[in-house]
């Protein structure tokens, strides 16, 4: 397995970006309109990490459109990667790690799809993949690093080395990764797409700057004034964003820092379904939570108010 030249072609990526309008204007659309901007065959990068600030509402809407041949990129890929496998939406996973977390064990779905060769999994180290986004965000074809040297991960994507022209040392040249689409979920944005994140920023800003098309959901749409009052909280400027949808609880049952905690119990039920029935368990989950819930409101109605209130209470307490 090796990376394709289109992934790190910074000249072509820049030409595409130059050709795109970078307006300071209105970005608000419906969740459906935002999701419709993910074409079949696209390389799609996710914001958030593992079960934190995952753009789940947006990705569920993408899955409802029955996409094909996606390449999904996420440093710590949670169960959204399993959904895409079972839904037949994904040709390749690019990640540093895939699962939910220690208590839920190895991903049986990942094992089934990867071991059978149906979906290749291209593995990078956490920093290695982070630097692929960073290189692209900086408009570069590569970044030097020490990480991954000496490991067999160097061979997975076809990593090359570069010699420092000053010191003569050999460094790993991490190739840039310019995704076609970024899916992000943030705490707040104004209608022009200026985005603010509370707590840990994960890799969202690099992913936004690296990607050709940037789709964002926000817990809250705030007046322009609120952004301008705290410009040092903004992490993605409006001219980078293509479409913005207002989606409270857009990451639930994953967490959103300070707003709501994750639901490990929900993960447990999901995994129990797989332990009982394998991929069929995921299909049933998708029927109920993805295809069966026509709108985000329908989806939220599948969780009790009390359960969400408790998640919000824990979220506030943990960030205080």
């Amino acid at each position: 397995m090796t990376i394709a030249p289109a992934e790190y072609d910074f000249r072509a990526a820049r030409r595409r970006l130059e050709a795109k309008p970078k307006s300071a204007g209105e970005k608000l659309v419906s969740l459906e309109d935002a999701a419709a901007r993910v074409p079949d065959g696209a390389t799609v990068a996710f914001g958030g990490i593992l079960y934190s600030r995952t753009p789940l509402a947006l990705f569920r809407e993408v899955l409802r459109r029955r996409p094909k041949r996606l390449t999904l990129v996420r440093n710590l890929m949670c169960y959204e990667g399993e959904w895409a496998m079972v839904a037949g939406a994904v040709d390749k996973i690019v990640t540093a790690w895939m699962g939910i977390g220690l208590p839920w064990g190895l991903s049986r779905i990942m094992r089934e799809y990867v071991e059978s060769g149906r979906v290749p999994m291209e593995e990078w180290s956490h920093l290695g993949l982070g630097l692929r986004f960073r290189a692209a965000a900086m408009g570069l074809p590569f970044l030097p690093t020490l990480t991954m040297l000496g490991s067999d991960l160097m061979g997975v994507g076809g990593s090359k080395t570069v010699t420092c022209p000053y010191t003569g040392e050999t460094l790993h040249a991490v190739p840039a990764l310019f995704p076609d689409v970024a899916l992000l979920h943030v705490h707040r944005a104004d209608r022009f797409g200026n985005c603010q994140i509370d707590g840990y920023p994960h890799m969202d800003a690099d992913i936004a700057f690296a990607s050709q098309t940037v789709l964002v959901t926000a817990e809250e749409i705030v007046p322009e004034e609120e952004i301008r009052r705290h410009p040092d909280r903004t992490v993605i400027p409006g001219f980078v964003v293509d479409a913005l949808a207002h989606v409270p609880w857009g990451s639930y049952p994953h967490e959103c820092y300070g707003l709501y905690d994750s639901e490990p119990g929900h993960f447990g039920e999901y995994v129990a379904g797989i332990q009982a029935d394998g991929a069929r368990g995921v299909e049933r989950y998708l029927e109920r939570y993805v295809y069966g819930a026509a709108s985000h409101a329908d989806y939220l109605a599948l969780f009790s108010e009390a359960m969400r209130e408790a998640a919000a209470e824990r979220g506030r307490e943990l960030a205080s």
Partner: protein
Amino acid sequence: MSATLGGVEGVTANELLAVMGARELEDDQTVFTGVGAPMLASVLAQRLHAPGLTMMVEGGIVGPQWRPGWLPISTNEMRAAYRAQMLPGITDAFLLAQRGFFDVGFIGGAQIDQWGNLNTSAIGGYDRPKVRLPGSGGANDIISLCRAVIILTVHEKRRFIPKVDFITSPGHVAGGDSRARSGLLFGGVTRVVTTLGLFDFEPQSRRMRLESVHPGVTVEQVRDMTPFDLLVADPVTTTTPPTANELGILRSLDPERQFIG
């Protein structure tokens, strides 16, 4: 310069540059703007035809809305950050330019040569210069990294020279495709706006070419003030004089005439 700069009584050099510069910017563009006249031109464009223009200022300032009467002296001060949308830091601001996020780079004048190269470093040798100028600041980065680059400058004989002693900020380097061959894969100087007229660069030689003269200025006057073999478009057009609306808004932004002079 005459009392009828741009064909309008009482217009100052900075007013003329700001008005002519503002007209170069389009709505919904992104502009990386340097200190001085480019800042005036950008904020004027915002108030005229380009409300959706996003300014990036060198101090790491995105989308400010400057306050009339409190225009910034430098690109790195609170007046420049007034009502900003984001403050990403200086290095990261320039890296966004390297990624290709800025439609226009907008910088002020200095010594400029026939290929649009700028010298703001040293006259008469780098190590023991005759005159040590302040340096690049962000001009080198803006000219190297933005998609299109517009230079605003007062048109004086001492500023326009055949070949700069030292290329601080590369225009078309030695002309032809030498800029791209130097490794600058993107962008390039597209336009020079002076107190006498508007210039572009002839596509093959990449030498400066007079496109338009401001009202009341003749081609011969421009040649006299330009000590290199200036190319001249055929025909040369004449720019529209600054309008009362343009001047009125500009003057309302700087009521004490601190910047417009």
